[in-house]
Structures are given as structure tokens and as C-alpha cells.
């Protein structure tokens, strides 16, 4: 993705998600949107603004503050033949619904011996960087990726924001889409609909390079691209791999980039310990050990709750200079 600030034909990530919801609801009347303040308020990030007027309150359902029940109701509605899009306002509140996600949605197909699949899509905003402090700044998408039975998507580009949802709705199993809140305002050109069905299985190289690999996803992508740009000024050609999907991970793509560059930095806004960055690092070390010319380095969020004050929050999160420094370390220069 190239982030363009041109005046024509550009669209925000927010608009892309809204357009995806609208198109899905137009195409299939089993699809409906449900969540806190998706209707009258217009969505806490204005994603669903206008949809209530367009589709009415039955299909754009404001829910009470009952995360467990409305996520569980989404599971039930999916079992009942609907194609619900459940919006959990942010990942922080999804902890209240975790029982339903982990103990019901993820297990149902298996426990029923293959009888009942759950075609549910859950969307939630994730991430830090807006000074909203510890309880509103979690990045737990990598944590969710630990759970078999669910799929985890992390659209980082306008294109993915626009097209992943439809593919997720077509998926027979529970899919969780994490939208990094800092991306909603990003603008870019929306490429015409590409492959159909849209690919939600593989990672993509967003910038080719031969010296080292920057492996990231979601909110990390713009930072990795910026770091790659900066590194290029130092004559270092960084390849940027956008994972796109955290479960199941595209191991092949990870190994392919590392086999070509022999060095890697993983950028993850989640905490480091036992996060998705650990899995990436472990898989590469386990499956491509002899290909590595240097130990892999992870640039993650510091292992602290996210502080409010701007300078501390900035220091806690992965930032371009940290990525650049890590890349130099890995390059040995």
C-alpha cells in the first residue's frame, strides 16, 4: 500500500470499513451489524455512521453494555442462519466476552463433532497511541491468535479494510477482525476489487528488499514502511512483510522472506512475552535456523501498562527510530 494524500480517489480506512459493511449488508440480508453505539451514535469511531438510516434499527442494532451477551447472541444468530457482524467497541472490552469467544465460538464446531459451524464475524478496534491510558490501549490481537478455532485478521491497508470483511463473512468459522484505531484516519487509494474471493490466508510483501526483513501487521505496518524508507537512505534494503492474518499464520511467507534476507526484525504493538512476536521468532528460529545470519530482534511494546502521558506512551510503543535501530543491530551496522 502506498499512503497517498492526493485529493482525488482517495478514501480513508474508516470509509473503507464502512463501505465493506454496507456492501455486505446490501448483498446478503442475513448480514446485520450489532454492537454498542453502532446506530444512533454512529459508531464510536464513526465507522458505521449513516448505516442506521440506510438499513434501519433491525439490521443496525444498538446493544446494551453487555459484551458477553451480545457476542454470545452473535454466535447464536450465526448458528440460526444469520451472518452477524458483531462490533466490540474496542479489544479492551472484549475481555468481558472472552468466555463466549474462547469457550463457545472457538469450540463449538469441534465439540459438536463437526455439526455446528459458527459463521460469525467480530470486529474490534485495537491498539494504543492516542493517550487513552492503560485500560483503553490494549493490543491483544496476537493474544487471540493463541486460540484454535478462530481466525484473526489484521487489515493494515485501505484495500484490506475494504475487502477482508466480505471474505470473513464468507468464511464458515468465527473470524475476528482487528482494526487499529490509529489507522481509521489514514487515507489511500482503494484499488479495484482484486482477487475474488479475496485472500484472507496469506501474508504480503508490502515493500521488497534484500538486506533484512521487517515482519509486522496492523498498526505496525506504517511504522515498518517508514523505517524501511529511512533505512534505504542508509543503503539498507528492508523487505516489509505484512502478515495480514495472525491465525493461521502464513509461515511460508515468513520463511520465504527470511530465507532471502537472512535477517529479521519483528514489529508488534503487543507486549513481547508470549505474544505473536514470540511465535514468529520461534518459528523462524525453528524452521530456518541455519539461514539466519543474525539473531532475530523483536521491537514490541514495553512490558508496561500503557501510560497516559504522551512522552511515556511514545516511549512504550514501537516507533520508527526503534525499528531503525533494531535493523542496524541486526545488520551489524
Amino acid at each position, binding site marked *: 500500500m502506498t499512503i497517498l494524500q492526493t485529493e482525488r480517489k482517495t478514501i480513508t480506512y474508516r470509509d473503507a470499513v464502512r463501505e465493506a459493511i454496507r456492501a455486505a449488508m446490501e448483498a446478503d440480508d442475513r448480514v446485520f451489524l450489532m454492537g454498542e453505539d453502532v446506530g444512533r451514535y454512529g459508531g464510536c469511531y464513526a465507522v458505521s455512521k449513516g448505516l442506521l438510516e440506510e438499513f434501519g434499527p433491525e439490521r443496525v442494532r444498538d*446493544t446494551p453494555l453487555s459484551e*458477553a451477551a451480545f457476542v454470545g447472541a452473535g454466535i447464536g*444468530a450465526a448458528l440460526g442462519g444469520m451472518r452477524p457482524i458483531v462490533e466490540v467497541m474496542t479489544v479492551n472490552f472484549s475481555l468481558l466476552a472472552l468466555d463466549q469467544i474462547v469457550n463457545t465460538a472457538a469450540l463449538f464446531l469441534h*465439540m459438536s463433532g*463437526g455439526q*455446528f459451524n459458527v459463521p460469525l464475524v467480530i470486529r474490534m478496534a485495537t491498539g494504543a497511541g492516542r493517550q487513552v491510558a492503560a485500560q483503553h490501549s490494549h493490543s491483544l490481537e496476537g493474544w487471540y491468535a493463541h486460540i484454535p478455532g478462530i481466525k484473526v485478521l489484521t487489515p493494515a491497508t485501505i484495500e484490506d479494510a475494504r475487502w477482508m470483511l466480505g471474505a470473513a463473512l464468507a468464511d464458515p468459522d468465527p473470524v475476528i477482525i482487528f482494526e487499529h484505531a490509529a489507522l481509521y484516519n489514514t487515507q489511500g487509494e482503494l484499488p479495484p476489487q482484486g482477487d475474488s474471493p479475496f485472500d484472507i490466508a496469506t501474508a504480503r510483501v508490502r515493500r521488497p528488499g534484500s538486506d533484512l526483513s521487517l515482519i509486522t501487521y496492523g498498526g505496525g505496518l506504517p511504522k515498518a514502511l517508514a523505517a524501511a524508507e529511512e533505512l534505504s537512505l542508509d543503503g539498507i534494503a528492508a523487505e516489509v512483510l505484512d502478515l495480514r492474518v495472525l491465525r493461521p499464520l502464513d509461515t511460508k511467507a515468513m520463511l520465504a522472506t527470511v530465507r532471502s534476507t537472512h535477517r529479521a526484525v519483528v514489529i508488534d504493538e503487543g507486549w513481547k512475552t508470549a505474544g505473536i512476536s514470540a511465535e514468529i521468532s520461534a518459528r523462524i528460529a525453528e524452521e530456518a535456523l541455519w539461514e539466519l545470519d543474525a539473531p532475530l530482534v523483536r521491537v514490541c511494546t514495553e512490558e508496561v501498562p500503557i501510560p497516559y502521558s504522551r512522552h511515556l506512551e511514545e516511549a512504550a510503543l514501537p516507533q520508527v527510530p526503534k525499528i531503525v535501530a533494531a535493523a542496524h543491530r541486526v545488520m551489524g551496522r
Partner: protein
Amino acid sequence: MTDPEHGRHLLREMLRIRRFEEKCAQLYQAEKIRGFLHLYIGEEAVAVGVMEALTPEDAVVATYREHGHALARGMDPGRIMAEMYGKVEGCSRGRGGSMHLFDAGIRFYGGNAIVGGGLPLGVGLGLADHLQGRDRVTAVFFGEGAVAEGEFHESMNLAALWRLPVLFCCENNLYAMGTALNRSESQNRLTLKAASYEMPAWEVDGMDVLAVEEAARMAVESVRGGGGPHFLELRTYRFRAHSMFDPELYRGKDEIEQWKLRDPIESWRSILSEQGLLSDDEWNQMEEEVRAEVQSAVDFAEAGTWEPVDQLTRFVYSEA
């Protein structure tokens, strides 16, 4: 006066559960069945009575104590037993066991081992029916212990707020494992909870199969007719331990014996006999038929096979 046919049908349905579970207990001792096993013995009138009120198009969500519900709903006993044996011929291919009986054919959505966990699911099934304009009802069963869970409250409110076609069936057997209701709820009148959501709620004698059936029929009719969700408190008692591991330190033998005097099967059998609707021969025949049915379930399970280990990773995601 009871319709004779129907009266005997109710009795037989309860008896099927009783005898089936007695066999399960034996098979547990024989280590044919493993893991957790929660018996419904004593509570049969509840599942049987409620199921009478449902049509095949309706849906059922139950708990880990759901053999009775599965049987009364019409699940094949052989497939239930095979499930408990862990055989691939089981209703959940042996993946679920006693606590996770599923059957898409009869819209039986489990078998949920998280207390309260099935309620949101039931609300969602109701939501789907509401959105599709179908007049189906979803019956959700749960114990009185679940009333303390947040998921119970959130689900009740959501169903009532959206007037969804859900029948909440609270099986109040007075204990959640070893915790008596009065040590679990500050207010034991459970119908007051429903009232606080403006949901119609009735207290029903869960040892009286006819009372349960009547209440369920009225409630289901109202739900189906657009009356929004209803709540039934079904007062019952479990005669056996909570599970096979429970030393039952928390209640006296006396109490159990008192309740056994109200055994739903014995009570209903006496009523039928007194009304001249059930001769000893008929009863003996019923016993024999039920025994045979249970035996053939066991035979089916015994004859079942183990799923090949190389299939372990199936059913995590749907197959294309």
C-alpha cells in the same frame, strides 16, 4: 382427566431417562464412560414436560446435565451412549462426551459445560428467528446456580429488550454443586429477577410432569405469539450426587429421602394407576421396552468404533 395415551407417553419418556441414566452410572463404575457424568435422575419431569410444548422446528440449548433433555427431545439413545463411550458413532463423534451432546437434526445445540454459557447462545438463536420472521421458539435450560452469573442477567435483559422468542427454563434443584440457593442468591424468589426485566415468569412444580407441560405450553404459545421471552422456574431436586466425584457433604440424607417421596416418575405412575390409565401389565411392558431400548443403546455403543487418531485435527475449522 388425562388423555390415556398421552399420560403413558409422559411416563415412558421419564422412564427412558431414568433407566438410561441408571445404566450410565453402572457404566461409569465399569469405566466405560469417563470424564464428568452429571445425572438428571429426579428431574425428569422438567425436560419431558417442556419438550412436549416444543415443535421440531424449535431449538433447545442445554447444560452439562443434559441427557434428559437430549432423550426427551428425541435424540437417538444409541448415539448418546456411543458419545459417552467416546466412539465415533456418537452424536458428537466422541469429541464431546456426556457434557456435549449435539444433534443438528433435532436442533439440539448442546451440551454446554460453562455455567450460564448457553444463555447468550439461546438469545442469539431467538434473534435469528426474529430477524427472519420465523415463529420458532428457543428453549434454554440452566440451573438455578447460573442465576448468579453475569451472562444470565445480560441475556435476560437482551431477550426482553428485543422481545425475542426465547423460553428461559431455570431448573431450580436447590443446589449448585454444594452451594445451596440461599448461599448463592440474596433473594431466592427467582421470578423476581425476571420481573426486574419485565419478563413474564412463573413458578412451576418441577416434580409434576403435567404441571410442567401445561406451564410450558402456555409459555411457548405466548412466546410464539409474539409475547416476548418468558421465564419458568421449575422447582425440582436431583436425587444423585452432582457428579460422580461428589461426596455430598452439603446435604443430609433426610432431605434427599423427603424429596424422593415426590419422585416424578413414581408420582405420575400412581396418578395414572389411580385413574385406571395404567395397568400393572402395561407398566411392566413399558419397563421392558425401555430396558430393551437402553440395552440396544449400550449394544450400539459397544459395537462402535474409535475415530482414527489421524483425524484428530479435524473440526477445528470447517472442511471445504
